[in-house]
C-alpha cells in the first residue's frame, strides 16, 4: 500500500491545449521510473485518455460501475500492456455528469490512493462542475497552457479557482512551444507566460509532429519514441515531479547557426 500518494489534477480551462497528451505521457514516464501510477479519466463528457494509451479495446468496467458498487476497483482498472506500473481508470457514460458529485470523485480517488504512488486526473475543459468535481479530489495541480492569448487567459481563471480552493503546489506546463516563432517574438515567451500567470514552471513541451503520429498509434511518445523532442520534454517533467533537478531546455538553443544568434541578439532587453 502506498502511503504518501500524490494526487495531481491536470487542468487548463481551455480545451485542446494538451492535457490528455500530458496525462498519458506523464503516466508512462512515472511508471517507467518504477512508480505505480493511476491515470483517471475525469473528462466524462469527451473521454479520450483510453484512446491515447491504446487501451480502448480492453475496457470492461469504468469509474461508474465502481461508484455504483457493481464491480470492484481492480476489475475496472486497465493495466497498460508494456508498462505494468500504469493503470487507467476509464471514464463512465457521459450521463454520469448528471449525478456525479465532488464526494463521488473523492471516494474514487481515496480507493486509488490505497494502491498507487501517483494518481493523475485528466480534467475536462471549462471551469464548471466537471472541473470542480475533479478539483475536490485533488491535492496539487498542473496547469497546462499554450503560448497564446486565449489559452493563457483561461489558465488564469483556473489558477484563481485553484488558489481559492487551497490546491498546492500549482505548477505550469507550457505546451506547443515553437522556438523559431518565440525567437522572432511572434509568440509569447516563456518568461511572458510565467510572469503573467505567476506560477513556477514545471516544464515546457515543444511543438512536435510526432505527437500526432503517436496518437494515431495509441502509443504515447514516451513509450517508444523517447528521442523525439516532445518525448524528452515529457520525460524531464516526470523527473522534475520526482524532485530531480533537470535544467529547462532553452527554446532558443533549439535553433542554432547565425540566424539563431541574430534572433537572440534581437531579444536583448533594453529596458
Amino acid at each position, binding site marked *: 500500500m502506498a502511503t504518501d500518494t500524490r494526487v495531481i489534477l491536470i487542468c487548463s480551462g481551455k480545451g485542446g491545449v494538451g492535457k490528455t497528451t500530458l496525462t498519458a505521457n506523464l503516466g508512462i514516464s512515472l511508471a517507467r521510473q518504477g512508480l505505480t501510477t493511476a491515470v483517471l479519466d475525469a473528462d466524462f463528457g469527451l473521454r479520450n485518455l483510453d484512446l491515447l494509451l491504446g487501451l480502448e479495446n480492453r475496457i470492461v468496467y469504468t469509474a461508474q460501475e465502481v461508484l455504483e458498487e457493481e464491480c470492484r476497483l481492480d476489475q475496472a482498472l486497465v493495466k497498460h500492456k508494456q508498462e505494468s506500473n500504469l493503470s487507467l481508470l476509464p471514464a463512465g457514460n457521459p450521463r454520469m455528469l448528471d449525478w456525479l458529485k465532488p464526494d463521488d470523485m473523492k471516494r474514487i480517488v481515496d480507493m486509488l490512493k490505497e494502491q498507487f504512488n501517483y494518481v493523475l486526473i485528466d480534467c475536462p475543459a471549462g471551469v464548471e462542475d466537471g472541473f470542480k468535481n475533479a478539483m475536490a479530489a485533488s491535492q496539487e495541480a498542473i496547469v497546462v497552457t499554450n503560448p497564446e*492569448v486565449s489559452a493563457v487567459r483561461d489558465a488564469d481563471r483556473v489558477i484563481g479557482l485553484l488558489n481559492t480552493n487551497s490546491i498546492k503546489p500549482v505548477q505550469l506546463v507550457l505546451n506547443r512551444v515553437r522556438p523559431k516563432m518565440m525567437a522572432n517574438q511572434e509568440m509569447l515567451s516563456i518568461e*511572458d507566460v510565467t510572469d503573467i500567470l505567476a506560477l513556477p514552471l514545471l516544464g515546457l513541451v515543444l511543438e512536435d509532429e510526432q505527437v500526432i503520429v503517436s496518437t494515431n498509434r495509441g502509443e504515447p511518445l514516451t513509450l517508444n519514441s523517447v528521442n523525439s523532442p516532445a518525448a524528452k520534454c515529457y520525460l524531464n517533467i516526470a523527473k522534475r515531479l520526482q524532485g530531480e533537478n533537470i535544467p529547462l531546455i532553452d527554446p532558443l538553443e533549439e535553433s542554432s547557426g547565425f540566424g539563431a544568434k541574430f534572433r537572440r541578439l*534581437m531579444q536583448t532587453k533594453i529596458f
Partner: protein
Amino acid sequence: MTMTLRDIINKLLRRQPASASTARERLQLVLAHDRSDLSTELLDQMRKEILEVVAKYVEIDVDEGAVSLETEDRMTALVANLPIKRTMTGQIQLKEPTNQSEEETESTDQKS
C-alpha cells in the same frame, strides 16, 4: 513594461511591433479586469468620482487623468494617474478654498 532590441528597431522604422509584445500588453489588460471582476461601467463611475474628489483640492488636467487596473504577481492594483496643473511659477495650483466655514471667516474678516 519591457522592450527588446527588436521592439526598438521596429519603433524606429515605424513598423508594427512584433506580435508577442502586443499579446503581452493585451493579456495584462484583460487579466486585470478578469481578476478584479470590475465591469467597465463600474470602473468608469469610479474614475469620475475619484477625479471629482481630487479636483476639489488641486487643479488637475481632467482630460489627461486616468484610473486603471494594473496587475502583477496576481496582485491587482487600482492606479490613478492624475497630472496636476502647475502655475506659471511652477508651483502646484491649489484650488481656492470653497467650503462654507472658510467663506464665513472671510466675511467676518471684511467686517472688522
